[in-house]
């Protein structure tokens, strides 16, 4: 994977994404470029905004979510 992809992951690890709980986010160039409940819409918006740059999709679980 590219260094761009790596930096998207590093941003994901460090960022406070609490405002997006329950949503999908798209991360590109060290910021959240799109978010929402529909992963397809979020991906399409990220493709439009990021152009040729890679973006990372992540689902942000609610604080109440405990995964067994």
């Amino acid at each position: 994977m590219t260094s761009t992809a790596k930096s998207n992951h590093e941003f994901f690890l460090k960022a406070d994404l609490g405002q997006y709980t329950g949503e999908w986010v798209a991360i590109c160039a060290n910021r959240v470029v799109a978010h929402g409940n529909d992963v397809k819409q979020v991906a399409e918006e990220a493709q439009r905004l990021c152009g040729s740059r890679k973006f990372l999709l992540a689902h942000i679980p609610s604080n109440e979510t405990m995964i067994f």
Partner: protein
Amino acid sequence: MTLSFKYRDVPRANETRAISPSIPIILSNGGTRFELIALVDSGADVSAIPRRTAELLGLNLAGELEKAFGIGGSVPAIQSSMTVEIGKPHERYVLRVPVKVVMNDQDFSPLLGRAGFFDEFIITFDSRQKKVVLKRR
């Protein structure tokens, strides 16, 4: 050669926190590919993704609807398969893995379960160092 990924520190209810072995992967199907964060789930027999993620990838959802069981009960699911790319610039692997597509409206991070994935790596969950390490068999 090994792949090492830091855990993500995540907030939970009542101002507690947990750490999560969430790693970046590329899911692809034909010419469609997206990078997503997936949860490495040693408790899952098989990988799982939500219906809308499967539709994003254009996975074949023509299979028979069946029940998949978890701690919270059963959910409707269809058996399919997807391609998982995992790696870093120095090391990268491409695997075809079976996946249960959960056909209700639940949304969740893709879960990387044992079938077809854990078979391919020796996986170490290092909670103290807050990292998950994958070594190719």
